[in-house]
């Protein structure tokens, strides 16, 4: 089952996917989610991941703290990176621009390795390049 469109547009949903052999976490920031994201599985993943202990060392993208500004709380991204996810945030669009894009920015990643719980990985949709655009902070 999909998240309702009005729910997607008013919430900042943590969602998860596989892409090119790695596990990703993404913060939707009020944007549309891909059709492949199942709300029931996604909620279950949020709950299971809450119990996971994060042991990965993490690296913040260059310039990302400056991008968000002093005092911004990036801890929710860091938590998922510590659990082995490359953690993304949806790029915001300008007022009046279409809000349907799936363009995401890397915030923080594990220094080495990736989330490897097979059971949970199977619950995540695998996305193709044409579905999502992932940019690094310097490439916008």
């Amino acid at each position: 089952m999909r998240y309702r469109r009005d729910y997607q547009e008013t919430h900042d949903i943590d969602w998860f996917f596989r892409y090119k052999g790695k596990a990703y976490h993404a913060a939707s920031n009020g944007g549309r989610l891909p059709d492949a994201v199942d709300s029931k599985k996604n909620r279950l993943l949020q709950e299971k991941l809450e119990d996971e202990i994060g042991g990965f060392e993490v690296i913040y993208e260059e310039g990302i703290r400056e991008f968000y500004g002093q005092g911004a709380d990036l801890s929710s991204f860091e938590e998922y990176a510590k659990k082995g996810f490359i953690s993304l945030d949806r790029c915001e669009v300008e007022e009046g621009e279409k809000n349907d894009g799936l363009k995401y920015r890397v915030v923080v990643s594990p220094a080495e390795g990736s989330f490897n719980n097979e059971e949970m990985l199977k619950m995540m949709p695998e996305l193709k390049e044409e579905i999502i655009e992932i940019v690094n902070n310097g490439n916008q």
Partner: protein
Amino acid sequence: MATQRALEHCVSDAIQEIKRQVRRIRQSHPNVKHRIQDYPAMVVACGYKRSGAVFWGQSASPVNLQYEQPIKKRLEALAPIGEKRKECNNVIGACAEPHAANQVVKTFPGCNMKELQFSSAYRPRTAQRKKYCQNCKETFYEVL
């Protein structure tokens, strides 16, 4: 009188409460459709100058919400509630601002809309300050 400081304090408390609530619900493993286990996209506080009362609101679907008449009238002047217009990406009535203001109007029926006060708008996840959208600027044109 609600001061800007009181408004910012209220919204800061709201952000902390939202974060605690999201974590608590996820840890309780409900996996139930109607338990909110996601951050709202935005949060804002709204106060009524005359009384000093402050309320906070979060972005949420307006579909099942009955807005108080003064707010409803202003929102519908832009477009039907629940729809979008080309000037703004947000659905009419979905922003945190009308949700917060609705509580003021509900508590103080007949209040003067010119006496509403808003905190800055924030994204709870990051606690970043955000701009008010075009819909909100037009709805609360005297104060935003």
